[in-house]
């Protein structure tokens, strides 16, 4: 892969996994993955539900012991020097792990004590962080009264109390409405831009990975199947996708005609998809060929390669339309 930021080349590596694996009894959740993330990157870990994303992030954040391989965070081993790792990472886990009976303020102060931040320092930092995520007004309300978006933002603020250089976000925008999602993305970008925070995020949303991450790894069934910058990954798929809807009677004819224009791609029922060699310039040619073959086209579209195409290319399945 020819990404602009190659793992291991240039910049110092702060997250490094070597043949990392985890099994639960017979079930292999993570099947030996290699990763390296350089300082200042926003790294997206993309995959469907149950692909092993959460298991991986739990191992990287010392919450789960690997059953194979190793991982180092800023040169500290996640097993041998777990405490040192915990000191330099911030973590916001799935399902907003916060106590609904406490207020935002109380949780912030508890978090500060847990990280051994002096009281005077905490007094300054907590309101600052709450303001940053827009929760100043709600700081003394119980978390149970917060909306999903507010909980996520509080979760983020909690992860930042000790000013970590590396931030882990597990499915940061799962279950959020579009507005809250945009606000959260903006905050993550700002952290990365202004403080140089390295961000490792897992997601099952293509858009999230595309928008936020400068580099992406795609995980499927516990194994990494692709890795690189979004642009580079899309470039590997090459040509744009042409989708043609026709009446079932003309299905085989259409396939035959289109076979001359590029390789077949996975598509839904009643539709023929190909990677169109030569791109948009050849659309007119395709239409003419179909017309010559006597195929009435009901719908035709041309899409630039997406991460979904990358995923489909790697796994033969589509991520889009998978459940929430």
């Amino acid at each position, binding site marked *: 892969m020819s990404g602009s930021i190659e793992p291991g080349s240039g910049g110092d590596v702060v997250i490094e996994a070597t043949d990392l694996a985890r099994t639960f009894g017979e079930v292999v959740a993570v099947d030996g993955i290699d990763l390296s993330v350089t300082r200042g990157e926003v790294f997206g870990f993309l995959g469907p539900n149950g692909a092993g994303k959460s298991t991986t992030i739990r191992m990287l*954040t*010392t*919450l*789960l*012991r690997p059953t194979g391989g190793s991982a180092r965070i800023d040169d500290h081993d996640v097993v041998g020097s*777990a*405490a*040192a790792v*915990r*000191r*330099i*990472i911030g*973590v916001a*886990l*799935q*399902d*907003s*792990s*916060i*106590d*609904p*009976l*406490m207020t935002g303020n*109380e949780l912030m*102060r*508890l*978090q500060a*004590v*847990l*990280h*051994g*931040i*002096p009281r005077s*320092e905490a007094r300054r930092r907590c309101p600052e962080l709450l303001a940053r995520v827009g929760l100043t007004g709600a700081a003394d309300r*119980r978390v149970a009264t917060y909306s999903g978006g507010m909980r996520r933002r509080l979760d983020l603020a*909690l992860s930042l109390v*000790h*000013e*970590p*250089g590396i931030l882990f976000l597990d499915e940061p925008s799962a279950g959020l409405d579009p507005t809250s999602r945009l606000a959260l993305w903006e905050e993550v970008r700002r952290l990365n831009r202004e403080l140089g925070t390295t961000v490792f995020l897992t997601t099952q949303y293509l858009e999230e990975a595309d928008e936020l991450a400068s580099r992406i790894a795609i995980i499927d069934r516990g194994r990494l199947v692709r890795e690189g910058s979004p642009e580079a990954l899309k470039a590997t798929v090459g040509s744009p996708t042409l989708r043609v809807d026709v009446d079932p009677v003309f299905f085989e004819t259409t396939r035959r005609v289109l076979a001359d224009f590029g390789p077949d791609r996975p598509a839904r029922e009643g539709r023929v998809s190909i990677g169109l060699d030569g791109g948009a310039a050849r659309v007119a040619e395709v239409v003419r060929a179909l017309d010559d073959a006597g195929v009435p086209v009901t719908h035709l579209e041309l899409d630039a390669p997406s991460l979904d195409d990358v995923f489909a290319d790697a796994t033969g399945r589509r991520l889009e339309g998978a459940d929430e």
Partner: protein
Amino acid sequence: MSASAVAHTEGLGHVGGVALAICGRGMRRIRARPTLIMPVLLMPLIFVISFTGAFGSLTRVEGYGTDNVFNWMAVYAALQGAVFAGVGGASATAEDLENGFFDRLLLTPGSRVPILVGTMAYSALRSTIPTTGVLFVSVLGGLSLAGGPLALLTVYVATAGMAAVFCLVGLAVVYRFRTMRSMILIQVFGFSSMFLSTGQVPIHFMNGWLHAVARVNPITNVLRFARQGFLGDLTWAMTWPGLVALGGMSLVSGTLAVWQLRRLAA
């Protein structure tokens, strides 16, 4: 990454600070939702009222040792309540584990033992509420303070100790199984351990296997220690076995809990 944060995650100050914060969090939860304390308060009150009401005529049996049944039952109800409250403290951790909040606590740099100590302290502190309730009802029922005000102190020491011990037992199980359901097991264990002791009648009333079990049950010593001031004067002979029993049970349950906490990240 600020250097100051590193410096403060080691040492006794940090350990105490975290334990205190965890304990404070528990008390704050009670303030936020007072109904949380209701079962813990009601259970021993029901016990003291039911057992004194139903078994009031025990005092007429030769050798019971007191003419007011409250003098015997109050301590039993208070300790049973403390066991219940202690396991309840561990249940709060089960809840944290189930909803993911515990992950946040586990991400604390430095030792995780203060999390355990804080939860235990919270359980012990919280147990004073049902203990006070039971003592209040018992005084209304004519509890005699034969041993002076110190008699009350022994009850508070014993209940706080038992709450701590059963919180630790509960934590060991919660850390292992990570579910709220497993707490039922520990409640049954707690109730049974109390029943298999001199809770309701003196040891010489018992026969057969029950006599043998109550004889070696460390809780018998704790009951004797906490009850002495209502039956007569406080004596060292009645005191030290109770304290040793509490210490021993804490040591065993604490070791178990720490061991399971260490395994938690596996």
